[in-house]
């Protein structure tokens, strides 16, 4: 009886070993060739900062995505939204700065240092839980440039918006490269 049990167990063990290896080994071996599990990074759609308990965010009025393309010659319109999440009335002063930089040298390693082309400032006085917005319209945007809107309040500054000021390069200017 015991011998029969031993043989039966051995058959099951060999079978299970084979099936487990067949299933498990390729999975784990292939893991080496899989992309590494990078920590998930999620884009923040409404960048902002907090000053005196008031949260300030910047949003383009239209369109509203980060990769929006602006038409050169048109102004950029955006709003600053303020929300007082504290339990007391508060005031937040802020400044806005619009900078632009052009990729004027195709062989250069980097974009040049951006230059300021517009600036403005504002202030919010909010009761607890209150939300207000202020709209801003810049001057005409220069063509072919990266535009950045910087928001500053207190000692904190963030690059709130970053977007190009013209439609993507036309296909007629795109060089073609033939591979052998």
């Amino acid at each position, binding site marked *: *009886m015991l011998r029969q*049990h031993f043989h*039966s*167990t*051995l058959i*099951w*063990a*060999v*079978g*299970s*070993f084979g099936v*487990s*290896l067949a299933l*498990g*080994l390729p*999975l*784990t*071996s292939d*893991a*080496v*060739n*899989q*992309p*590494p*599990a*990078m*920590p*998930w*990074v999620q*884009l*923040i759609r409404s*960048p*902002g900062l907090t000053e005196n308990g008031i949260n300030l965010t910047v949003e383009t009025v239209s369109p509203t995505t980060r990769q929006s393309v602006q038409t050169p010659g048109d102004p950029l319109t955006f709003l600053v939204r303020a929300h007082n999440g504290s339990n007391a009335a508060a005031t937040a002063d802020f400044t806005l700065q619009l900078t632009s*930089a*052009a*990729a004027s*040298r*195709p*062989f*250069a*390693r*980097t*974009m*040049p*240092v951006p230059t300021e082309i517009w600036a403005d400032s504002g202030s919010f006085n909010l009761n607890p839980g209150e939300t207000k917005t202020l709209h801003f319209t810049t001057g005409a945007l220069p063509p*072919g440039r*990266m535009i950045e809107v910087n928001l500053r309040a207190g000692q904190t500054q*963030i*690059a*709130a918006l*970053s*977007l*190009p000021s*013209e439609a*993507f390069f036309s296909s007629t200017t795109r*060089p073609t*490269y*033939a*591979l*052998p």
Partner: protein
Amino acid sequence: MTCAPAHRVLSPSPRSSAILGICVGVAAAVAVISLNGGRVATIQAHGPMISECDGRIRSIVIQYVRGADFATPIYRQLLLALPADVHVYAVCPDQNSFNELRGAVGISAGRLEPILTGHPMTAWSRDRWIALSPARFQAPVTLLAPSAENGAEIWEQRQGDERIADDLSHALPALRADRSGLFFDGGDLLADSQSVFVSPAAIRRNIQHTCQDRAELARLLSEQLQRHPIFLSDAPDHHVGMYLMAAGEGRVVVGDPSLAKPLLAPIELPGGPDFSASTQARFDSVAAAAAAAGYRVTRIPCIPSSDGKTFITYVNGLIDQRDGCRVIYMPVFEGQDRLNVAAQTIWQNLGYRVAPIDVSSAFRYFGTLHCLVNVIKKT
């Protein structure tokens, strides 16, 4: 109550044999798979960002496009100076570009292994990706590319640059490419065996775009690069390798305009040299941040221009460590003999052999040797 006969208690059923057999079989398989290393690879798919100053350079990547004449004198010198066992991959958009590069570098052309992309690109390799060392022996190197290239929306070549890491991983089986999700140029991050130094641009482009604050950015960088991040918040607004280089054994070399001022020979720079107190303070802030992190800091002459991007710098080199010695392929500048000698002496005093590479043709394009060359693998 009656007791069951003893032989019935000991007698195994067919079901118990099956269960026991399955358990033994699965356990043995798990043991074999674990010995094979598969589970380790699943948990940790890549190692840390490779160090600038430690290890023997095994393979590098350069990029070239037709007309980028400023780069070829540097490639020619570097290929002659590099040990013969270093593999050199040349990423070009097409065969004509590669032929032009091969003709320009002369007798070392045979070292170049072409990788043709078929799309626009720039001639700057450093900023496209950073290399993460393999998690274990014979595992692939990971090329970690940023979420997007800065200015790609208006700069066609820069948009093509976004694809270089993938191009390389498709061409070379020993590589794999991944995207970080963070925004950076490769030059915004510079690592030694402990830390990674982070430029102001990498901080600015990520906070409130990919992470809430500096603490979250530090956590993401630590997890992805497996190095301790040191933020250079008040540094010059340029890539780290333009003003700081890791020198190994807890040392860094940091640029210092005040050391360069008395040694500078007349030279035309965009807007002139910038010896202002505010710019000096930016360089000093880098030295202070490194010192605060426990590094021994050596200062070296450096001249920023008033455009903020054109630097005469002696830290923008490549470091190779072999046979117990470190060599730096150090940028030098035509007509700046006093600065060149002073910088060379500083590196030699740190125990380095200095191999000078004249970068006069390139530095006006906002970068030099370190910016043109990226290192895939060190051992």
